[in-house]
Every structure is written in structure tokens, then in C-alpha cells.
């Protein structure tokens, strides 16, 4: 699937701009902290409006001069740095949130498949605040996958984890890339992570 992104947005006194094309596999947006990598993901997700440019995924235009799809219509899954699970819903209700909203034709994974894929079957009745960092990140990944996305955005998903958990989650990300063949836009400032995971690297500078 072809991903074609050319966006610019002024935030305060600096301009965040990125222009790249990506294919399937994992495309790492690599650069120092504060370079605006997260803002680029937010523009792709529809949470931040670019001042100009375009965002195309496959045949679909998410944003250009004439089109600006709202986030809920973009089929873009987003795994945030901090998991961002809904605190008032149990793990099961977090996982099914997007699944229940998606038209059946757009879903490509069931709750059983997702829990098995991520090894989170034993967490379904827990509350988010009782999860460890690694568990919460798995649930966040599952929640995004279950909404039936065409592309997955990941914003430094390993940054809040200890070394052992990082390895676990990296293995999960590799399986999303290789087994599920879901295109991933991955933000990181960690060279080792990018070397291990990335199919393609896009440098994001000041």
C-alpha cells in the first residue's frame, strides 16, 4: 500500500514539515526529540490539521486542499506513547470500543484473535490502572488493531517500558509488520529500535 505524505504546519514560532512516500512494512520517522515527529502522526490521524499539503493512503485521500476527513473516517490506528487507555472501561471494553464502531466489512480481526495474538486473554476483566506498562501497551495495540485500520501509527511505544518489556513489545511489532502485513508509521529517537524494526527510515530534522 502506497503512503504519500506531504504536510506542513506552523506551531508557535516553528514550522513542522515532512514529505515522504512509504510502502508496506515499517517506516520509521527518526529524529531528535522536539523535531515534530508526533505532530506529523497527529496530522495523519486527523487530530491536527495541516496548513497545507496532502495525505494519501492507497487509493484514499485523507487530506488535501479539498478533502479533510475527520479522524473517525480515516481508518488510521494510533498507538500512543502513554497507551491512553480509557480509565473508566475495563480492558475488554477498551478493546471492543473501536471494534463495535467499525462497519463489519472493515474489521479484519476478532476479539479472540487479537487477545491470542497479543497474549492478553487473562487481562480482559482488569481495569487499565491495574496493568503494568507492557500490559497496557499490548492492550492499546489490540484496541487499535480491532478497529480495523489500514495503517498503524505508533508514537514511541517503547519509551515508557523497561528493557525486558521492550524486547517483548518489539517482537509484537515485528509480527504486526510481517504476519499481519499492516503498514506502520513509527516514531522514535532511538537508533537501536529503528535499526531493528524499520523497513525504511525517514529522517525528521529541525
Amino acid at each position, binding site marked *: 500500500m502506497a503512503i504519500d505524505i506531504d504536510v506542513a504546519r506552523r506551531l508557535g514560532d516553528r514550522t513542522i514539515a515532512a514529505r515522504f512516500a512509504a510502502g508496506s512494512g515499517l517506516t520509521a520517522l527518526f529524529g531528535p526529540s522536539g523535531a515534530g515527529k508526533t505532530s506529523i502522526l497527529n496530522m495523519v*490521524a*486527523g*487530530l491536527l490539521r495541516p496548513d497545507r499539503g496532502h495525505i494519501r493512503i492507497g487509493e484514499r485521500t485523507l487530506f488535501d486542499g479539498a478533502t479533510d476527513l*475527520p*479522524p*473517525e473516517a*480515516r481508518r*488510521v*490506528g*494510533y498507538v*500512543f506513547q502513554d497507551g*491512553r487507555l*480509557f*480509565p*473508566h472501561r475495563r480492558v475488554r471494553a477498551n478493546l471492543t*470500543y*473501536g471494534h463495535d*464502531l*467499525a462497519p463489519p466489512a472493515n474489521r479484519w480481526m476478532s476479539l479472540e484473535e487479537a487477545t491470542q495474538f497479543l497474549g492478553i486473554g487473562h487481562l480482559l476483566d482488569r481495569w*487499565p*490502572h491495574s496493568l503494568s506498562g507492557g500490559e497496557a501497551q499490548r492492550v492499546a495495540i489490540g*484496541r*487499535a488493531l480491532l*478497529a480495523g485500520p489500514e495503517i498503524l501509527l505508533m508514537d514511541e511505544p517503547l519509551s515508557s517500558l523497561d528493557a525486558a518489556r521492550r524486547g517483548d513489545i518489539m517482537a509484537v511489532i515485528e509480527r504486526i509488520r510481517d504476519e499481519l502485513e499492516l503498514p506502520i508509521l513509527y516514531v522514535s529517537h532511538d537508533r537501536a529500535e529503528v535499526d531493528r524494526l524499520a523497513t525504511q527510515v525517514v529522517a525528521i530534522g529541525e
Partner: protein
Amino acid sequence: MLSAEEWGIVALSLKIGGVAVLITLPVAFALAWILARYRFPGRVVLDGLVHLPLVLPPVVTGWLLLIAFGPLGPVGRWLESWFGMTLMFRWTGAALAAAIMALPLMVRAMRLSIEGIDRRLEGAARTLGAGRWHAFRTISLPLALPGILAALVLGFARSIGEFGATITFVSNIPGETRTLPLAIYSALQVPGGEAMVTRLALLSVALSLGALILSEWLVRRTHSEGQRRGD
């Protein structure tokens, strides 16, 4: 323990307090939401107007209600000619006075809980396929719920304690507008009314204390929810 007359007073107070908070709830929530989420010119003025009943002498609030809702007032005349409805000297007028006095407290409680919601959760919901309204209903509203309940309890307690605006706007009519505080005031004027004053005053203390404890508990629940989210 209480006489039939005193039970009547309690029932009237609860009815007026209940109606007052139910009228105020949607208005207060809308105001709290706007003040918590939006920056616009005139915001400071709106904030000031909402808080006005908190600092204005209640008798002035009552007088303003009299001017607006009295039979010759702009709103009162309109209500009278279109609906045949009068608020002055009626329990509905007492409910309106109580509602206005409860408004600032209710807005404050709800605004705090709305400001405590992590807005990024709404963004997360949107990326999962929720439209604005659905995200509001399933994420923001449930997370604000403890604050809404606290506002209801506080507003109710404030309503049944309302005195100054009530007596100015709807007078002190037994069975129609004589709520707990007005009844206590009346009993104080009558020789031999001390026993009734004591009973009604104790009842007022119990109701107010119960409401404060309940709302404090609800607010603390919101708080611990926020801390959990910060983990």
C-alpha cells in the same frame, strides 16, 4: 418526632430543592463545559455573571427576580400572557430563586471535573471511529459524572437552604413558599416556637452535613480516578 405541619415544610423544601437542581442541571453543565473548554471574548464576563449570585446580597437577587418575573416585569408579563403562568408568591418562584442561587456552586463543581478530563482520551476515541458526539457520550460524560453528581448534591443542599432571594421574591406563605429556613425564621418570631426551631434547625444541620460528606466523597472519587490515569 415532627408534627404534620413540620413534615409539610420538609416535603415542600425537598420538592423546591429537587425542582431547582433539575432546572439548573442542564444549564449549569452547558456553562461549565463552555467555561472549561473554550476561550472567547466575553468569557470573563460570563464567568462573572455565573458567579454573581454567590457574592451578591441574596435580597438583591430576589429583587432582580421580582423586577424580571413580577407581573409587570418583561419575563413575567410574557409568561403570564403566553402560558398563564405566575411565579411570584408561588412555589415555582421559590424553585427559580433556589435554582439561581445554586447555579454558581453547580457550575464550579462540574467545571472542575470537566477540566480534570484528559482531552487526549477524546482524541484516542476519535481515531477509534467515534464521532464527536459519540466520544462525548462515551468518554467525556462518564468521566465527568462524579463532578456532575457532586454538583447535584451541593446544589440541592444550597437550594433547600435558600432564604434571602426566596423571601424577597415569593414571600413567606405557609404551604406554598415557606421552606425550612423560612419556617425557622417564622417560628423564631412566635413566642413558644423554640422547640420547633430546634427540631427544624437540627434537621437542616443533618441535611447539609450529609450533602457535604456525600459531595466530598464524590469529588475524591474523581480525584483518585485522575491519579490512576496519571500512572
